[in-house]
């Protein structure tokens, strides 16, 4: 690969990534030269601006046909664009949300936080665009390593340390498992490019290895579910979420989770779409029961265990486990709606969860406690905090006229719209949703029905903006989901996801 070949690639495809990379580098350099005691707030603005620029870049790319560079390892297709928007939006909101994080420890490390965040984002974006096991893996690790550090960002906080350590140990094991599975995928097909893998999986006389395919599938699938915190690799989430700083928790629960779904979709759907399972049945059909069990277990564990939580961050950790379970449902059903369903749900989830974490951030940092009691009488104290929080919770619980409902409705459509409708899975989902009512509405009850002894909560401008934006989005998407769906259908063609670009594009005129 000489310079000519390198230059022949249409690097503009990676413009958003370059922007993020550049800003991250810039931030780290600036941080290095900044005085130790000076405020790092400008860094936040810079990071935010960088993300905005990347977002704009993506919007400019919207009408670009599916393209790929680096021998089809890096793709710009509808899928990557759609999910990158989510990733960028989520990170942007996390940055604004972190703007009032007052703890001394973070203040000291603030610069690090921003460029680590951007690095993690970069990893996630790489995952969205990669079509090769290697780049996928590199992206995944970029995201993971940055996240590990971010979780332990409060250096002097024992809980933060502990959470980071738990995160890295669990993450390391999960990485190893994922890689182990990937090595078998590679070994069975001799390829790392996803499309070629798919091709080989279909073509192979792999029948005698069909067990190995299923084995590889399950190992890889399980390993990848670590990021989305689905059973059985979910147990790190509560501890890590609890110990990590709130913005990081928000990032983990939204952006990192979105990235996890991105890689799951990429690897699982593309690699195994034509793969035979045991007895020549398509593997995706054959493993349905296992994925179903995983999804069901995730929903049950998340929702049921959340019932006993008094720590609000921990409760949201379990809640996010449960939400992951919901989003796993489309994987089971493999409905043709899978992309828009997951995309929409993640979009809704982004707004509601970041919105909720904004409120949590405000309250916990003011009260200095993570106990659920920080919500006590919030409606009396700060109705403008309580009302949006109510919307977020209602949305998380899947109550109509919120985005969460539409998302759940879509998942139901996916689950029940098959030849063999998944009534059981749908029932489990509804039953666990009911269980979730108990703890979600418990927060509402505490906000509205308990009398407060606390004081009014002041809301900084940035946070207010996040709150307003998230609340409005949750409601608007709940009432007019077509805004998002039309955007999706209008700009993204799901078929691109499966479109292999055979011939390398050699253009020198970019």
């Amino acid at each position, binding site marked *: 690969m000489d310079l000519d070949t390198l230059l022949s690639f249409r690097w503009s495809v990676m413009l958003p990534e370059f922007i993020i990379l550049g800003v991250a580098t810039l931030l780290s350099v600036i941080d290095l030269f900044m005085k130790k005691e000076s405020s790092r707030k400008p860094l936040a603005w810079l990071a935010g601006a960088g993300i905005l620029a990347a977002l704009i870049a993506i919007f400019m790319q919207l009408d670009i046909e599916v393209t790929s560079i680096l021998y089809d390892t890096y793709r710009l297709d509808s899928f990557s664009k759609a999910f990158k928007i989510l990733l960028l939006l989520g990170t942007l909101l996390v940055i604004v949300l972190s703007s009032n994080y007052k703890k001394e420890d973070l203040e000291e490390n603030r610069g690090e936080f921003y460029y680590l965040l951007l690095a993690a984002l970069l990893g996630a974006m790489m995952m969205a665009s990669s079509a090769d096991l290697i780049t996928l893996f590199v992206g995944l690790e970029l995201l993971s390593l940055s996240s590990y550090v971010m979780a332990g960002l409060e250096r002097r906080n024992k809980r933060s340390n502990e959470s980071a350590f738990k995160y890295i140990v669990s993450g390391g094991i999960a990485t190893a498992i994922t890689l182990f599975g990937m090595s078998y995928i590679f070994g069975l097909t001799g390829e790392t490019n996803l499309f070629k893998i798919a091709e080989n999986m279909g073509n192979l006389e792999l029948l005698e290895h069909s067990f190995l395919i299923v084995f590889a599938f399950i190992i890889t699938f399980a390993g990848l579910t670590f990021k989305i915190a689905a059973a059985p690799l979910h147990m790190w989430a509560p501890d890590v979420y609890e110990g990590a700083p709130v913005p990081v928790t928000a990032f983990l629960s939204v952006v990192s989770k979105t990235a996890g779904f991105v890689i799951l979709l990429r690897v699982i759907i593309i690699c195994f779409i034509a793969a035979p399972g045991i007895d020549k049945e398509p593997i995706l059909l054959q493993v349905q029961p296992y994925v179903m069990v995983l999804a069901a277990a995730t929903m049950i564990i998340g929702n049921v265990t959340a019932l006993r939580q008094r720590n609000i961050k921990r409760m949201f950790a379990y809640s996010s486990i449960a939400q992951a379970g919901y989003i796993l449902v489309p994987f089971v059903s493999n*409905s*043709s*709606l899978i992309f*828009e369903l997951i995309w929409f749900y993640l979009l809704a989830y982004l707004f509601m969860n970041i919105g909720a974490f904004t409120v949590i951030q405000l309250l916990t940092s003011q009260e200095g406690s993570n106990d659920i009691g920080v919500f006590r009488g919030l*409606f009396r104290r700060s109705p403008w905090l309580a009302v949006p929080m109510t919307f977020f919770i*209602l949305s998380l619980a899947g*109550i*109509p*006229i919120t985005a969460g*409902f*539409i998302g759940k*409705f*879509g998942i*139901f*459509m996916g*689950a*029940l*719209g098959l*030849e063999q*409708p998944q*009534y059981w899975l*749908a*029932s489990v989902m*509804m*039953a666990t*949703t*009911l269980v979730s*009512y*108990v703890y979600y*509405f418990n927060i*509402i*009850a505490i906000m*509205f*029905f308990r009398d407060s002894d606390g004081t009014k909560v002041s809301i900084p401008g940035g946070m207010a903006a996040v709150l307003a934006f998230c609340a409005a989005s949750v409601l608007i998407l709940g009432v*007019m*989901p*077509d805004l998002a*769906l*039309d955007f999706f*259908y209008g700009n993204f063609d*799901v*078929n691109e996801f499966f479109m292999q670009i055979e011939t390398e594009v050699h253009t020198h005129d970019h």
Partner: protein
Amino acid sequence: MNTWLLSILILSPLLGVLVLLFTPSQDEKSIKWIGILGTLFPLGTALVTLSAFNKSGEGLQLAEKFQWVSYEVFQSNGDVSYPIFYEVGVNGLSMVLILLTTVVSVLAAIASYSIKKDWKSYFILFFLLEMGMIGVFASQNLFLFFIFFEITLIPMFFLIGRWGYLEKEKAAYSFLIYNGVGSAILLIAFVAMFMKTGTMNFEQLAYTFSLPQSELSDMNITKDFKMGMLIALLLAFAVKLPVAPLHSWMVKVHVQAPPPIVMLHSGILLKIGAYGLIVFGAGLFPDQFESLAFIIGLFGLINLLYGAFLALTQRDMKRVLAYSSVSHMGIVLIGLAALNEAGMTGAVFQVVSHGLISALLFFLVGVLYERGGSSQLKDFGGVAKRMPIFAGVLLAGGLASLGLPGMSGFISEFMAFLGLFETMPVLAAIGTLGLILTAVYVLRAVLAITFGTEKELSNAHDLSSTERIPAFILLAAILFIGIYPAWLSDMLRPTLDSILLGLGG
């Protein structure tokens, strides 16, 4: 004007919310006035709608429809789109229920004078609740129905949990979870039907399901699927109605919620269950409904007798009324199970009639609580002396509840039984035992309060002029329907006929 009339009607309660948002939250008097006026606006709109409504017209009227949500599904055999529409419209049945909703809402708003705190949020939630209730009845597709159905849930949760009595939060949770179960089942059924047929519109669904089995098989719709859907729907609405043994939440709500809210709950919200049974159960799956008729009738009978037996020995007036609601909802089931015009009309009459009667009775219980600080029967006696009008209205309400001719309760009971006697005489004959028991428990409770030796009350004065408005209006409505049922039955006939056509054919 008429093109948007229904949407305006559905959204009309929001006007009150809007005004309230700009009202200082400490100004109790103006908030309460806004509360009342805010419910008058929907009532006015409903009356305009009624005047625009052709009472003898067939089918749907004042319909509105536009595309709302669109999922496009890429399939090997071409793209299939699953559009979801915003579809509203009214037929005789829903018109009647909307009218009932708006009327009871106004009266409940008047009765809300007794609310002691947080008036602003109270009325905002109240309006949202009203919007949900109107929406439920105006919806013409499953999606919209479900959304409004759930919208009623949330304000109710708050209203019970914040403004209720001692164990309010428990009741609120009980309400939420039980109804959550109902709506969960409902959602599964709705989506399943949607995915099979590609439509959510009631009429289209009814048409699709009425196709011969050979055509249905092409859509992968089996008989078992239909039966399963019907059972799911029955279950879901059985929670709402409620059908014993799924009633315990309703008793809790009746006991713990503030009286105006119970007026709405018992008066309207429970009726959503009955409405759902009629529109979805009998309307969509007539054949299956027919084959389940005996079981439905049996459950109706159980409800009727179980509620009545339990009401007999309750010590709290609210609990008596709660179990009486269980019992009365049994009559709805009985009427439906009859599968004939008389029974169906009886069921709908019971829906309306019980809406009015229970609103009246719970209003009076609220007054009673106001006066005596309790609703335990043992704390009252000889109220007729100091509060003769109250006692008179309470007695009238009780008599209406036990089905005294000339009052609405009689018509519904009579017709429901008339219907059932044609198809299941034995069941009906056993059911008449309920009529006796009703008389026993109603008189026991009412007389315990109004008759007998007088007991001291902290605040014994008769109905004030504010209190008389709801009481007298409700009583007048009860009498009006009892004396001139044709007004209602004429409006209902086209709708019920079309449902019966499905059942008969």
